[in-house]
Structure formats: structure tokens, C-alpha cells
């Protein structure tokens, strides 16, 4: 049998297509150079990435965002992959992120928050006629993170 991961509909297919579509939106944003060229789908996928990273922060030990109420976890409209992925330990294996983390004294949470902010700033209305420029450094790191996770999800598809 020749495995065809792309044609898989198994349990990891949702995660794979989620990450793959985010990766595509990042690549389009990097190629475009500014937010002006983005389509609605790109914006939605970049927002999904921002939520994904934000969920990684709220899973931190002692995170203030953790709710013990079941109501918070029911009827989620977006697929949620945060609970299954230990982002903190996974990112240690992404050299682009790790090197960037070590380049300053700021900690993991601050750096991750900076990546999240880079997405929200890029997507927020600029208030003038000029579109926002793509934050290349942050988006390249984001792309490295997504591709690392994507590579694992693809292996799981086989």
C-alpha cells in the first residue's frame, strides 16, 4: 500500500488541514508584503493561528485564564487543538523560535505574546490609507512553528 496522507479523513486530518491552511495564509502574507493584499480567508486563518497560540499561553501552569466551569468548554464554535498540544515544550524544538527566545532576556510568555500581537496588529485596521506591512521576522518564526507542528501532524496521518 502507498500511503496518501493528503487523502486521509482520519482523526488527525482536521489538525493537519487546520495547520496547512494557516501555513498557506502565512505564506501569502509574507509574499504580499502588506495586509492590503489579504483575502478574507487569509484573515480568518491568521486569526485562528492567534487563537491557537493564545490557547498555548492559557495552558501555562497557574494561568489565570483557566476556568473550572464546564460551561466554558461546551459549544465551542472553532476546533480547538490547544488541549492536545503542549506548545511550551514543542516550541523548544523549533530552532527559529528557540534562537529568537535566547536572543533577549525576555521570557517565553512575553515572546509568545509578541508573536500574537504581531498578528493582531497586522490584521487591525490601520486607520489611514496605508496598509500594514507584513512583520517579516515574526511571521517567519510563526511559519517555522506551524511547519514544525504540521510535519508531526502529517506523520500522524499515515
Amino acid at each position, binding site marked *: 500500500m502507498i500511503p496518501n496522507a493528503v487523502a486521509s479523513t482520519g482523526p488527525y*486530518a482536521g489538525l493537519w488541514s487546520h495547520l496547512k*491552511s494557516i501555513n498557506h495564509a502565512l505564506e501569502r502574507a509574507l509574499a504580499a508584503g502588506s495586509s492590503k493584499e489579504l483575502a478574507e480567508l487569509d484573515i480568518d486563518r491568521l486569526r485562528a493561528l492567534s487563537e491557537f497560540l493564545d490557547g498555548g499561553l492559557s495552558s501555562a501552569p497557574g494561568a489565570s485564564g*483557566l476556568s473550572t466551569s*464546564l*460551561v466554558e468548554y461546551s459549544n465551542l464554535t472553532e*476546533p480547538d*487543538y490547544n488541549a*492536545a*498540544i503542549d506548545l511550551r515544550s514543542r516550541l523548544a524544538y523549533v530552532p527559529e523560535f528557540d534562537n529568537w527566545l535566547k536572543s533577549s532576556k525576555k521570557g517565553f510568555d512575553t515572546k509568545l505574546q509578541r508573536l500574537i500581537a504581531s498578528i493582531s496588529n497586522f490584521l487591525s485596521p490601520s486607520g489611514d490609507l496605508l496598509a500594514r506591512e507584513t512583520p517579516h521576522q515574526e511571521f517567519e518564526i510563526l511559519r517555522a512553528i506551524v511547519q514544525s507542528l504540521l510535519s508531526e501532524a502529517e506523520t500522524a496521518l499515515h
Partner: protein
Amino acid sequence: MDFDVDQPAAVLSKSLSLIEKTDLRLHQLDRWQFPTSSSELGRELFLSALASVREPAHLGPMDPVVLYNRLFSLQELAGIIERSSTDRISWPLVRYCDEIWSNFFGENGPKIFYALTPEYNYSILHFSKRLADILRDILPDSAIQALVSNRELYCLQLASSEDENLPLYANIGHEFGHAVFDHHEKAIVSELDAKVGQVLVRVLSDLQAIDATQASRRFRRICQAVLGIGEELFCDLLGALLMGPAFFLSLFEFSWGQARDVWTIRLSPEFQNIRAYPSFGFRLHCISQWAKIEGFRSEASSEAAKSITQKVAELAVGVGTIPVNHNSDVLRVWPASDNDAEPIRDVLNPRLNELKIALGEYLHECDGFVRKWYSTKPFSDVSVYDVAELLLRLERNIPPNIVPDNTLLGKPAEFTAILNASALFRLDLLTGEGSGDGGERLRQTGIVERLTAKAFEATFIQREFNRWAGQ
């Protein structure tokens, strides 16, 4: 041709061909073969989704490879629509189901269509939600909303490998429970939270003691599992209220050959796909209360019931032997390869009894909710005497569709009374004398299936006639 450049275009081309092929397949379906008009809603919704995907403005920003992958998931939904055919789906059954559905949701609520599944089990699929989930990575949210807004649709999938086991229709009540749960999710989950909340706080503390760095994440997965267990038990409650002892017997039959003392949690990379189930022992214990098994048994042993047929009392004794013990329950978490499986198992197992008590209290509250929400709808107890009268007919190979009422015609039997009589009679056949003779058993159970199907149809038509005639 340069595949460094052309590969995405080639994948897009393959995807567009697949869309055309799927579109053609669905257009070729004969709408007159659909069991109800709601199947057409499913087809229209699906075809609208394909049309939206094909729009050039949507195709541009899409990753062709993601599109190709999502099309395989869409094929599964297309297959469900294709399996929605009157060939093997009984018309009276879907009319009964539609009647129950409209009691729950009215004319303006979500709709339901019916299809076969090659699986052994019955299941309900939130069709429009599943479609939206599949499209999320290829269409913008606004396009998905425009597509599914005011088109909420479910699909009840009937087990084709069990389509000659009519008593298992009792499971349909449980499946409808999932839609009722969705409809009242906030109120039900609030109640679940109120009852199990303290147990969960202790579970979080236990998780932190094992590994504080992973506790929050693992706790969220446990919450999803508890939500799943709460939903399953709610659906059992509804199944018991709607179908009575037949649902109890049906769940018991599902448990054959399996461990009845194991609670399971199946972890998944996607939070919403974590699945969790209580043990059969605990479920049967809960259902026996809500289906009033003890009351049914004692009434069936009364002289009045025995005067109709001794059979009803004999069968009631048999029902009493069904095990509902859950004292030795344990919880297992799968897959073992998931690093969270073991710690989740280790913190939940010692708290299983606390959890069961809290879940029992939650079900009592849900019973009150359901009766309040649907106060005018029939959750009537199954009449032992009606069941006894129908058993008498089954013993003589007469369709169990009429209950004597001192008139020449008698009254048409209720759907649940037929279902219960048939379920009891069939189980008696499977366990009775000569049960080792496969050929004879096939013949006898075949007769019961046909008599039951005939009774569903006849009683339904008689009720429709009575309504039309103004009786």
C-alpha cells in the same frame, strides 16, 4: 510543464474534477427515492456548499492541497445523502420519528433526514455543523455562515446491518437526545457543572500534584470528557422516557460480549472530538430507574396482566435478571500512546464514585427539565396491559397492532407498546428453547420482524385515518 511551479495548479485541477464528479453524483439522485422531503434539504445544502467552494473569489486564496483533503471528508457527507433512500428505510418508522422530532423542535426548528449506515450502531449527525467544520479551512467564516444560517439539519443514520432488528429502534430515542441536548445545551451543561463542579476542582488539584506544568491542559481534556459523559447519560434518560423498557433491553443487547464495568475516554487531537462513555453497568442502572423497570416488572407479575397472557410475567422475570451492578467500575483512557492518558486515568479512577453520585443528581435535575420543556408532549409510561395484549397476538403470529377496548375494532396500539412487546418477545426467542438451531431461530425472528413492521405500518395508517375521520 514545470512541476516546481505547476504542482498547486495540478492539485487544484484534480480537486475541481472531484467537485464536478460529486456534484453530478448528487444531481443524479432521484428525489422520489428520499424517505422524506428533508433529504432534499440535505442535498441542496451540500450542493450550495460545492457551489460556494467553486466560486473564483473563494478558490483564489485557498490552498489547493487543503481543498483536496477536505473534499475527501465532504465525500463522506455526500455518501450519507446517497444512502438516504426508501429502499431500506421503513416509511412508517420515519413518520413516527418525524412526529417525535416535531414534538421536540416544532415546525421552525432544526430539520432531520434519514439515511442508512453500514455501521452496527445507530447514530445522529449534526449534518449542517459537520459541513461547516469541514469547510472552515477553505472558506471564509462569512461564507460558511451565509451557507448554514437558518438551515440547521441533522441526519439520523439507521444501522443497515441491524435493519431486521426492529426492537433496536428504541435507540432512536437516545439519538434524538443528542439534538435535544444541543438545543438546550446551556441549561443542561450549567446543571452538570453545578453537580460535578466540586469533583472537578478536586481533580484539578490532583492533576497539579502529579505535574503542575501539564495540569491546565489535561484538566481541559477531562472537562471535555465529562461533558461527553453528561451528554450520553442525558440521551439515555431521554431514550428511557420515550421508549421505556425497550430502550433498556436494547442497550442491554448492545452490551453483549463486552465488559460492562468499563468507563472509556478516547482522547483526540481535536478537543471537540474527545469521546467518553460511562460503563454499560452504570448506564443500565440509570436507565432502569427512568424506564421504570421495577414498576413494569411488578405490574407484569400481577394477576390482571397474567390473565391476558402468562408470557408477560415470564418475560418480566427475565428482565429482572439483567445486571445493573456498577460497583466494580473502572475507567480506561485511550490511546495509551497519548502522554495524557495515564495521568488522566490515575486522577479520575479514585474519584469515579464521587462522579457517579454527582451524575445521578444531575440526571434527576434533567428529568425535571425535560418534563418542563415538553410538558404537553407524551412521555407516557408504557402500559403493561397493552404490551400483554400485543404479546398475545405475537404468540399467535398476528401483527401486534390492535389493543382490545371493548369495541369491534379495538384501538390502534401505540408505537412504544409495539416496540416493547416486540423487544420482549424477540429476546425470549433468542434465549428460549431450541435457541441453538440457527435456521429455526432465523425463521422465527424473521416472522417477529415482519409482524412488527406490519404492525407499525397498520397502526400508523389507522391513526392517520382516525385523525382524518375526526375520531
